[in-house]
């Protein structure tokens, strides 16, 4: 039987506010345990929550970025459950009237034709504001559990998608697109190691062609794109095997174990929590005034999808290049800054160098684009020297290497290291004569019709000029000489 996978994602994005959602305690990562947990966060009796404007503003920004409906009046609710890292006994979240409803995100998925990509739209159900819980440490406390409430009250925007994805690859493409978007607009720092972007995946399978969904299982707390893909792939295989062996899927919450690559049951629906949601009487409904929304809209940067389309349209870049350059805002800004100096005619060259040499060097040195030792002005200078024929690609790589390791401006490096491409045809001709005289065998082979021999001669000339000759020029001159 042919099976179809159905996936929906819930992503918890930590918002980039300085202070917590309902208190004035700091949200900075990595502080001493409980040093950033104030009386509201540890739930002392009689304290009251006061909503952080910065958190609401970031939710508005996200809603605008995905073309969603912003609920002009939205409501906070209590989600009740008992756990020691939740000292109030309830999490303040949004239930019936979330701040953001609907909207969509476009993703690029591989199409039927190999090497091609097509656009698919993933619909969003909602996004709501809520507070994070604290952290429980179960080891090393002689049979007790240690509680750190620094994270309690950290603002989160939980972003829920419709079950629109049909493979692990699509789920990863969506998660990546969402990650790009929230870091692009600055609502979330996207740091997955620190838990700023956590993914839950709802996964089910159904016979191909069937309308209704199969029973789903939810994989909790995936904190890397690789684990997301592995967990879904494992879960899908497991569900299909179960059904083909005549078992029924029972709705459940499961955890992914990166060491074994397997998912294992955490709890079934029978012991699922009844959260007893109700509007929080400590918080009044939140009103979003039109002029506030318009202020946020006016301050929005150009979004990745718009920029991608613009790069293709205005600079003639391929869909692949445009998507790569807009995968990160810093990279896109680096590109446009470089282009402003190098000239739009060199867009393709700049794109190639950014996504080739520069990206490879960043990866090798495990650096982010913000920490690149080469700035837009240097890259633009280098590209200009390639465009005007001063540097061959090979020489340009040497200049790049020097800029990367020692710093400096491209023109100064070209001068100091004598990396200028030879364009004096007299000098090149002289070298060609020497090469022809020294390689009579190759010359004879070429005259006998062996194309390979020609390439060998070009190689010899390039070698004799230490790679500084312009290969096209060498080709030209060599052809003339051999013909003569």
């Amino acid at each position, binding site marked *: 039987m042919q099976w179809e996978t159905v996936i929906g994602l819930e992503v918890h994005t930590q918002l980039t506010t300085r202070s917590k959602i309902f208190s*004035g305690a700091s949200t900075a990562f990595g502080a001493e345990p409980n*040093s950033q947990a*104030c009386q509201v966060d540890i739930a002392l009796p009689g304290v009251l929550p006061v*909503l952080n404007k910065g958190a609401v503003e970031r939710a508005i920004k996200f809603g605008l970025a995905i073309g969603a409906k912003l609920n002009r009046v939205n409501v906070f609710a209590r989600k009740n459950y008992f756990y020691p890292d939740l000292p109030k006994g309830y999490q303040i979240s949004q239930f019936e009237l979330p701040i953001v409803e609907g909207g969509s995100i476009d993703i690029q998925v591989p199409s039927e034709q190999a090497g091609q990509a097509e656009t698919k739209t993933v619909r969003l159900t909602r996004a709501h504001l809520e507070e994070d819980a604290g952290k429980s440490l179960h080891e090393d406390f002689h049979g007790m559990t240690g509680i750190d*409430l620094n994270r309690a009250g950290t603002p989160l925007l939980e972003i829920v998608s419709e079950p629109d994805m049909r493979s692990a690859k699509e789920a990863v493409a969506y998660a990546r697109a969402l990650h790009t978007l929230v870091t692009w607009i600055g609502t979330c720092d996207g740091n997955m190691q620190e838990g700023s972007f956590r993914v839950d995946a709802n996964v089910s399978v159904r016979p191909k062609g069937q309308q209704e969904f199969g029973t789903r299982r939810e994989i909790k707390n995936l904190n890397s794109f690789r684990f997301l893909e592995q967990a879904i792939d494992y879960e899908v295989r497991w569900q299909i095997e179960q059904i083909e062996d005549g078992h029924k899927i029972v709705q459940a919450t499961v955890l992914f174990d990166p060491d074994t690559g397997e998912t294992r049951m955490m709890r079934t629906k029978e012991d699922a929590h009844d959260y007893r949601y109700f509007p929080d009487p400590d918080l009044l409904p939140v009103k979003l005034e039109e002029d506030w929304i318009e202020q946020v809209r006016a301050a929005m940067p150009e979004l990745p999808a718009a920029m991608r389309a613009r790069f293709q349209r205005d600079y003639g870049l391929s869909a692949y290049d445009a998507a790569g350059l807009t995968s990160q805002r810093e990279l896109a800004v680096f590109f446009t800054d470089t282009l402003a100096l190098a000239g739009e005619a060199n867009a393709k060259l700049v794109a190639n160098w950014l996504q080739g040499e520069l990206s490879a060097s960043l990866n090798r040195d495990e650096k982010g684009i913000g920490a690149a030792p080469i700035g837009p002005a240097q890259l633009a200078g280098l590209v200009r020297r390639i465009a005007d024929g001063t540097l061959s690609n090979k020489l340009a790589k040497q200049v790049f290497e020097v800029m990367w390791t020692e710093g400096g401006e491209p023109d100064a490096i070209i001068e100091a290291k004598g990396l200028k491409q030879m364009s004096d045809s007299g000098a090149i001709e002289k070298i060609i004569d020497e090469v022809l005289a020294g390689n009579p065998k190759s010359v004879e082979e070429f005259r006998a019709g062996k194309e390979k021999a020609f390439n060998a001669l070009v190689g010899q000339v390039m070698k004799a000029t230490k790679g500084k000759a312009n290969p096209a020029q060498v080709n030209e001159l060599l052809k003339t000489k051999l013909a003569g």
Partner: protein
Amino acid sequence: MSLTLSDIQRIAHLARIRVTEAEAEQTRDQLNGIFELIAQMQAVDTAGVAPMAHARDVFQRLRADEVTEPDRRAAYQAVAPQTEAGLYLVPKVIE
């Protein structure tokens, strides 16, 4: 809906509250009074009326995103039953 005297005795038993005969009668009448009130409210036609999230028709005031709380861990932990290495300790919980 209305409760009988034996309902009251049963609820009292479940709640481990001892009630006298007289208290049971009084409680029954009070609870039934509340049920009448609920029935009266449920009889109102609320079609087309948006549910309220709060009894007061005002909106939430917002706070500027600023860190205003100093670290007062020592004071908070001084009244905690058990702490270690800056953590609050609780009986072991594993889900």
